[in-house]
């Protein structure tokens, strides 16, 4: 029997820990506990959300879960204990439970909860977790039980959108008017969640409260469009761009989702109810944005029962014919209904179409055309385009004269694209010239055609362009590169737009990677012609429809040359002199200039400019030229190939070339340069890594070297000065590790592994005395990480060196104490690598855990100990316990899988010491809510 003694004793046990707390409330099966627990205040303390370090956490509410289970059995008792404290809770989980409870209560009580929840939702910026979905369950429950107002009140708050915070952006003005960008509204829940809510509630609400339902969703869309308009004062919402057809569109933003929701609601209301179209019309007329006129037409379209007199009234409404592309749904509706309406209505519609559009709407455009003497043609074009669209909509029901007119207009302007495809979607380059058109032409005619072809004025991205025409050319070249290399000389014409030759060179670069044969020397000759006979502007701005000048052709030339030397089968050593002039020229191209690099010099995305600028890529081609020759058996050195090495040396002189992108390229190709002629390259190192006043050149060369080249033991003596410089620049207090610093640490530990430096080497000693804790931990951890990725075993001598290295680091960490926790704990990576003897690695790991209470990464450590637990049951379970205790967030265990059970079972079946430790750890696990492990002791 439930007595005060039992309740009080149970609560004493509950107070012992969170595991007990959760467990107790999860096990209660009768509502008898509600009153005594309520007397003891147990339902008045829902936990609040916890904000820590930029994160927000929502603790569970076991009491609430109990009430949720009891709600159907004892609804009045449960409702009676829901206090104001519950509804005021900042905890999302508490509110999920509250709406869950409400969905099980009688409708009147549910409505009370729903209204309180609506108030809470109205104060929230974001609805986390499962709240929207659970609230949808409550809304459906209310809708089905005559409490639609409460249902819609809650739904409206969940769907609500608001303006994002103002961003501090520079103000842009065009012709004295401030440009206001469209703003994407923000909602309270993710797109998917919002759609899920509407899908759940749509049917019951469309059935029982269609007008309220449509109203609340229309209100949200109206607000979303107003926010998106951003006070620009438009009467146009441009919905045909972002929603080409009401029936289908994307849901990639809040506007799209709000529109989709209204589409779902409209379809249901209009399809399911005889008066659905009328309800929709009533609701949509409250809003002014043009999309609501489209929704009205859509409601008519999907409705099964629109009376003919209303259909006729709609079709002869002149306001619907103002713009032939503004309401694609009406165009469709006209086509659908026109055949069914009477002759009188048809006659009136024809009159509207015959009268043409109101040209006053285009007065500004027509005035401009008038100034150019084109007014009459423009008026004709506007009128006929407009009529073409309307006649197309009713094409099946035209009389002979109008059929003839439609055919004439379609021949003149082309058939109009369906209204729903007027605009939108991704765009590419366009041309009205087909592959066949071009391939029919003889070489001379082809070049002449390309020279003469002039694109029409660009009116939109679909306009034919030189880039579009060049793509046709590129496709042809891809099929027959040999034909193009034979006729290439014909394209050496300064009157030809550079877009074509650039496309041709790009095509050859692609063809290099195929089996298709072509004359590479012809291409090289064309590159030489381009570089000798054309000029690139200093800064050519990007243009969508064609190349802005010759600079892109230069870049394509560099790309072809650097790719060429990766295909020695296409080259002949004895003809190398035919290629060399192209390399000299490309290495001398001005791009990138100091101006090009001004912003890049302040950034840290090393490598990007080197790979995308002409001169650095050209210099890479020179390096690869030397590589090709050396691989082909030619003796390559500064002495035997002076021109190439002098050229490479010159670009390390800041007076000749102060480009940071060029330095990046040398850093990237560090290994290659060292391989080509080590002695020569060592002599260049002070120039490659200069001191003041060229520190920026040094920085880019060094970072690029660290990023793209591994350590080279043979170069270490010559590179020592640069390593020392990097170590001296470390910040011991830094909390984060840059990629360059990480690479520096990796270089040094790899030198240790290779035996290139000893443990007392000043570089290593200085690194560990100057590096931050985070960098030291990274360097130590990376050793294990790299070894773990390596399939083969490591050589014993390397293993011994690394074990000695670890011993020295552990000693240093022990001397330093808890401050060195992160570095010592990184030994977990060594443990998981499986490259060291088990007894040694277990001993080291246990010492680290005991002294520093850290071993990471936790998932790999626990997994490895699970594999070792039969042989080392105590160490495994002990480390498991400590790693678990030290996980202050409590999430880590979810990534450990079956490893925990494996470790605990091994320990429980081992000696007393291991068993005792296993019992301690199981109690810890259970106390923190992992109740499943309790069975291990029961067994």
């Amino acid at each position: 029997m439930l007595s005060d003694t039992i309740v009080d004793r149970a609560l004493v046990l509950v107070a012992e820990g969170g595991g007990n707390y959760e467990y107790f409330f999860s096990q209660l099966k009768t509502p008898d506990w509600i009153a005594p627990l309520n007397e003891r205040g147990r339902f008045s303390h829902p936990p609040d959300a916890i904000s820590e370090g930029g994160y927000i956490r929502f603790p569970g509410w076991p009491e609430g879960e109990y009430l949720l289970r009891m709600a159907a059995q004892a609804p009045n008792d449960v409702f009676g204990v829901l206090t104001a404290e519950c509804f005021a809770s900042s905890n999302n989980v508490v509110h999920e439970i509250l709406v869950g409870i409400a969905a099980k209560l009688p409708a009147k009580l549910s409505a009370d909860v729903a209204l309180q929840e609506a108030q809470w939702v109205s104060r929230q910026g974001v609805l986390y977790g499962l709240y929207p979905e659970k609230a949808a369950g409550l809304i459906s429950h209310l809708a089905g039980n005559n409490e639609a107002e409460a249902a819609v009140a809650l739904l409206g708050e969940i769907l609500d959108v608001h303006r994002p915070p103002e961003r501090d952006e520079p103000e842009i003005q065009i012709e004295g008017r401030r440009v206001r960008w469209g703003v994407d509204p923000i909602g309270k829940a993710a797109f998917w969640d919002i759609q899920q809510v509407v899908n759940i509630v749509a049917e019951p609400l469309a059935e029982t409260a269609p007008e309220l339902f449509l109203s609340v969703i229309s209100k949200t869309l109206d607000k979303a469009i107003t926010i998106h308009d951003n006070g620009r004062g438009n009467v146009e919402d441009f919905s045909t761009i972002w929603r080409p057809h009401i029936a289908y569109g994307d849901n990639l933003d809040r506007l799209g989702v709000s529109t989709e929701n209204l589409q779902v609601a409209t379809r249901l209301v209009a399809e399911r109810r005889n008066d659905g179209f009328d309800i929709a019309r009533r609701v949509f007329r409250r809003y002014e944005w043009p999309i609501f006129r489209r929704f009205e037409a859509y409601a008519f379209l999907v409705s099964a029962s629109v009376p003919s007199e209303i259909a006729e009234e709609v079709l002869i409404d002149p306001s619907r014919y103002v713009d032939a592309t503004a309401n694609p749904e009406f165009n469709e509706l006209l086509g659908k209904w026109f055949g069914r309406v009477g002759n009188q209505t048809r006659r009136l519609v024809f009159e509207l179409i015959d009268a043409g559009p109101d040209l006053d709407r285009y007065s500004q455009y027509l005035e401009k055309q008038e100034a150019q003497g084109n007014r009459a043609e423009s008026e004709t074009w506007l009128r006929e385009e407009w009529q073409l669209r309307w006649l197309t909509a009713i094409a099946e029901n035209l009389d002979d004269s109008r059929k003839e007119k439609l055919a004439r207009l379609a021949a003149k302007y082309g058939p109009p694209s369906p209204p729903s495809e007027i605009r939108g979607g991704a765009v590419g380059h366009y041309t009205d010239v087909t592959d066949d058109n071009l391939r029919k032409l003889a070489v001379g005619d082809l070049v002449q055609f390309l020279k003469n072809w002039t694109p029409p004025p660009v009116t939109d991205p679909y306009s034919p362009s030189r880039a579009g025409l060049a793509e046709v050319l590129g496709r042809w070249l891809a099929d027959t590169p040999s034909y193009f290399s034979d006729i290439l000389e014909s394209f050496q014409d300064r009157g030809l737009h550079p877009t074509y030759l650039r496309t041709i060179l790009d095509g050859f670069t692609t063809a290099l990677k195929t089996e298709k044969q072509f004359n590479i020397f012809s291409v090289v000759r064309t590159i030489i012609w381009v570089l000798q006979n054309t000029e690139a502007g200093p800064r050519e701005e990007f243009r969508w429809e064609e190349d802005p000048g010759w600079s892109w052709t230069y870049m394509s030339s560099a790309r072809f040359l650097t790719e060429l030397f990766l295909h020695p089968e296409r080259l002949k050593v004895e003809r190398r002199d035919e290629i060399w002039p192209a390399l000299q020229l490309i290495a001398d191209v001005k791009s990138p200039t100091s101006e090009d690099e001004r912003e890049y010099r302040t950034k840290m995305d090393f490598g990007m400019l080197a790979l995308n600028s002409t001169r650095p890529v050209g210099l890479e081609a020179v390096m690869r030229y030397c590589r090709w020759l050396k691989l082909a058996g030619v003796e390559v050195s500064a002495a035997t190939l002076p021109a190439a090495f002098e050229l490479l040396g010159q670009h390390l002189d800041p007076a000749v070339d102060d480009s940071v992108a060029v330095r990046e390229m040398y850093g990237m190709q560090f290994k290659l340069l060292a391989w080509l002629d080590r002695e020569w390259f060592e002599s260049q190192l002070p120039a490659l890594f200069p001191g003041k006043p060229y520190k920026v050149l040094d920085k880019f060369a060094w970072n690029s070297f660290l990023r793209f080249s591994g350590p080279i033991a043979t170069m270490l003596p010559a590179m020592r000065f640069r390593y020392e410089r990097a170590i001296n620049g470390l910040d011991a207090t830094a909390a984060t590790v840059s990629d360059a610093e990480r690479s520096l640490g990796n270089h040094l530990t790899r030198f240790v592994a290779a035996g290139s430096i000893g443990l007392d080497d000043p570089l290593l000693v200085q690194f560990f005395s100057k590096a931050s804790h985070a960098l030291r931990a990274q360097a130590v951890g990376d050793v294990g990480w790299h070894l773990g990725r390596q399939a083969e075993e490591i050589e014993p001598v390397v293993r011994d060196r690394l074990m000695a290295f670890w011993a020295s680091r552990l000693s240093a960490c022990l001397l330093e104490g808890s401050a060195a926790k992160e570095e010592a704990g990184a030994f977990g990576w060594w443990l998981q690598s499986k490259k060291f003897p088990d007894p040694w690695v277990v001993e080291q790991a246990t010492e680290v855990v005991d002294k520093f209470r850290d071993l990471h990464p936790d998932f790999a450590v626990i997994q490895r100990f699970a594999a070792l637990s039969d042989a080392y049951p105590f160490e495994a379970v002990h480390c498991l316990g400590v790693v678990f205790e030290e996980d202050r967030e409590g999430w880590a265990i979810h990534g450990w899988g079956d490893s925990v059970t494996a470790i605990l079972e091994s320990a429980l079946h081992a000696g007393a010491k291991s068993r005792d430790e296993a019992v301690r750890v199981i109690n810890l696990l259970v106390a923190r809510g992992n109740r499943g492990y309790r069975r291990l002791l029961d067994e």
Partner: protein
Amino acid sequence: MADENNPCRYELAAHSIRELIEKSPLLTNSQAFASGDSIANRLTPIKRVFSVIAGIQKISEDINLESIAAPVRGLLGELEKFFQWQELNRPARAKMIARHLSELSGAGPAPPVDLFEEEVFGWRAADDYFKKVAHNGVENLDCDEFLRRMSFIENSLLRRLRPRSVEQLGELDALIREAENA
């Protein structure tokens, strides 16, 4: 404490327990409790002003207030500051202790604070007690009280660091069974 020849054994033991209390948040990677901002420290300026008054006149029922008006005003000012501090900090300290005790249980669910309010008060009282013993000594120290408060701290820590959850869940099962099967 077993060394009865050591006259300072209680003070030293109290010091150790104070260290344990003060440093126990480090077990959860939190900061140690700030030391120094104690009631005793806050009473120091009050005591100083009071000493001035006591030095002027013997404190008795027929004390001449006019002659000590200035230091009495100072005393009242210090008392006001003290009570303001107490108002602000004493509940916060209780909250801090409650949070600390919850964190000692590690990650995972935590029982509502009101369920272990008494433990929070007990912890705070023990903390104050050991501070007093450690710094000022206690004449005729009640050995039983000392041990009782020490056990209280020890049990609070053990309950969290060495939980007995498996056994306690069994007891909860039994209680629920008894209540619901009736």
